[in-house]
């Protein structure tokens, strides 16, 4: 692999802000006549913060921080030419991250099969085709303890074994890339950043279950992911990795892409199958499970993108190696998309069992400046919130479930003191109501009624009875809905009611929103003692609710006020209170 050097020459804080560090480095390379042999890339973010200029030398992966202009010649002679690290400049990241799924993301060119092969790509496939029987392949995955990363956490090896044993001459492998959970984008990153690892996982899965055909089901909203997978499949066909007699064995397997069309419910296995069959994405009752009767009535194994990206590594390093990472019930790593009110949002891959605190504060740097974190939400519209007091909780399937949330696909939304829990619950429920397919009554009617009650609460018209009723409908939906969408849709409501009941009660009893988020419950008032009578609020008000003049001061007419908050924002002396 050719030499590549990444430089990050923008620092947000500190004395050395942006300067032409890249230019200096390029100059240094020119002096040695290396400008055509070394690929110098300027990057905006390298995952290290507050450490000045950062340089990363690949393929050795030396990471240098706080690099000064005067250090450049040494870095070039020692590391770029010599291939040796400069010990005292080397940055050892006290990172709690472990990269298995994201091992190649950002390291290889995703459109180059050669790059992938250079990083042990398709070695695992060669290994199973040459040395393993399909039974042994499934056994190895079973031994690893890998569980489905799409949310439910079903043991992958067991799924493969059931599908392999199911009677039928034709079987199918499906990759579920219908990542619809708002706030989660780990599957997209893997499909775009390392498509071949998912393809390899699919082929190995196909071999293990005895399928000759596999489908990628990818959201139409992810055009780049689709293009990269298309290209990867094409390259594989050319290299004899897909098609008849793969890598000289007697195993035949081919892949095809099918696109989603913007329906969240299609992430559910049976709905996804209906969608691939060209129908509307209605779920169907289980059993029979897809492993027995799936696509076109044939045994079908559906695995999530992240699950599949784990497969090649497990095969190469062995199931027991993988089982050594993580906790007792949850093995390996999990990728989280940490977003929301957090300093460094992005993808984080940690071993199972890492605490939430380590992720939110240790890796992601905590709340945005001036605020404090209130809670996190995991599992998207099917999950729940975990308050700050419980941030010692470990992330694994069991612990999160015990907290009333779920692992889900791995979205982790950080919320701060400005976020109202009733409003968040309303947001998620609104999403599920929008996305409910309407087939079964508990989800269709229950969701709508719950949303109506929540709206009442956030509008300040709710009563205590409404809160009880919310709980009752939630339980009914959990028990009686047909598929996962309806069964889990009440989770955000139940978990916020559990941890933040007092906040709901403030809405219904005092008609107040403690976080000052629910528009109808906010009051803007001008505090005359702080007011400097500048008249900015008077000018800013779009509805003419502020009256007065520069002599007598100003007043807000509450009956006219639409609570847009513009006066609050323009008031320099902070003389307008929001409560």
């Amino acid at each position, binding site marked *: 692999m050719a030499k590549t050097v990444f430089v990050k020459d923008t620092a947000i804080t500190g004395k050395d802000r942006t300067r032409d560090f890249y230019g200096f480095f390029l100059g240094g390379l020119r002096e040695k006549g290396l400008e055509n042999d070394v690929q110098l890339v300027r990057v905006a973010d390298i995952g290290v913060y507050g450490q000045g200029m950062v340089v990363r030398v690949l393929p050795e992966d030396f990471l240098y921080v706080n690099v000064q202009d005067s250090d450049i010649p040494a870095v070039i002679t020692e590391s770029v030419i010599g291939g040796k690290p400069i010990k005292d400049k080397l940055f050892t990241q006290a990172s709690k991250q472990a990269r298995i799924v994201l091992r190649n993301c950002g390291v290889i060119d995703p459109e180059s099969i050669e790059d992938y092969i250079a990083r042990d790509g398709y070695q695992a496939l060669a290994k199973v085709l040459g040395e393993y029987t399909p039974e042994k392949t499934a056994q190895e995955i079973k031994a690893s303890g890998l569980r489905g990363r799409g949310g439910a956490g079903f043991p992958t090896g067991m799924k493969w074994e059931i599908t392999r044993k199911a009677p039928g001459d034709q079987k199918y492998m499906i990759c579920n890339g219908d*990542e*619809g*959970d*708002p*706030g*989660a*984008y780990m599957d*997209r990153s893997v499909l775009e950043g390392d498509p071949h690892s998912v393809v390899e996982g699919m082929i190995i899965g196909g071999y293990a279950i005895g399928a000759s055909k596999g489908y990628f089901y990818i959201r*139409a*909203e*992810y055009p780049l992911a689709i293009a990269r997978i298309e290209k990867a499949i094409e390259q594989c066909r050319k290299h004899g990795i897909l098609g008849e007699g793969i890598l000289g064995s007697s195993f035949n397997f081919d892949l*095809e892409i*099918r*696109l*989603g*069309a*913007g*329906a*969240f419910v299609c992430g559910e296995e049976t709905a996804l199958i209906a*969608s*691939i*069959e*060209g*129908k*509307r*994405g209605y779920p169907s009752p289980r059993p029979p499970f897809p492993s027995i009767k799936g696509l*076109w009535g044939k045994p079908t194994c559906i695995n999530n993108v992240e699950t599949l990206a784990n497969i090649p590594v497990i095969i190469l390093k062995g199931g027991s190696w993988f089982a050594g990472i993580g906790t007792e019930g949850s093995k390996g790593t999990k990728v989280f*998309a940490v*977003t*929301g*009110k957090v300093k460094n*949002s*992005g993808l984080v891959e940690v071993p199972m069992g890492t605490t939430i605190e380590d992720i939110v504060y240790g890796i992601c740097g905590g709340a945005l400046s001036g605020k404090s974190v209130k809670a996190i*939400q995991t599992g*998207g519209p099917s999950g729940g919130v975990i308050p700050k007091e419980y941030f010692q909780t470990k992330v694994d399937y069991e612990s999160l479930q015990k907290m009333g949330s779920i692992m889900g696909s791995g*979205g982790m*939304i950080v*919320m701060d003191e400005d*976020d109202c829990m009733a409003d968040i619950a309303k*947001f*998620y429920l609104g*999403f599920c109501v*929008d*996305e409910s*397919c309407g087939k079964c009554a508990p989800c269709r009617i229950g969701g709508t009624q719950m949303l109506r009650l929540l709206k009442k609460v956030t509008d300040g018209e709710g009563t205590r009875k409404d809160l009880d009723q919310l709980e009752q409908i939630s339980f009914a939906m959990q028990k009686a809905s047909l598929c996962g969408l309806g069964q889990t849709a009440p989770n955000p409501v139940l978990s916020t009611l559990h941890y933040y009941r007092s906040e709901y009660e403030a809405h219904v009893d005092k008609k107040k929103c403690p976080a000052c988020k629910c528009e109808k419950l906010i009051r803007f008032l001008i505090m005359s003692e702080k007011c400097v009578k500048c008249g900015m609020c008077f000018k800013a008000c779009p509805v003419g609710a502020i009256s007065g003049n520069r002599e007598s001061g100003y007043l807000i007419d509450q009956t006219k006020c639409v609570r847009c908050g513009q006066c609050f924002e323009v008031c320099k002396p902070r003389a307008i209170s929001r409560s």
Partner: protein
Amino acid sequence: MDKAVIEQEVREIADSWKGKEGNLIMVLHQIQNRYGYVPREVSLVLSEILDVPLARIYEVITFYHFFRLTPPGKHTISVCMGTACYLKGGAEILGELEHLLCVKPGETTKDGQFHLEVVRCLGCCGLAPVVKIGEKVYGGVKKKDVGDIITQYSEDSEAKTAA
């Protein structure tokens, strides 16, 4: 649109998916790529070619958010209302757009320039709040930036009409 032309175009699209089971959604994707939406005339022709009842085609089109039955505006503005964007003020951005363009989500402006829509997560939550116009993604959008962003597009179109 001329029926003969439609028939030829639709046949070309359908032929590439011939013999593959469950091809309806994929064919509809290509039709929408070609026309920007799925016109009724095209569905009628498609129904004949694929030998699928029109009701089945409409069943699929109306179920999936992605398919459109009406022509989109010249520029499609997608406002992300995923969780991260919602927390960081996506609703405010949407309100400002509604106010500036005088349309509700799902509607097209009278001059056909802008189609406003709400999407559930564009998958770039790190940039929240996000607005996408055409294929261009605007991250970290503030309420006060919205007007400027829109103006770029309307000026662009005015300049072209003048030329």
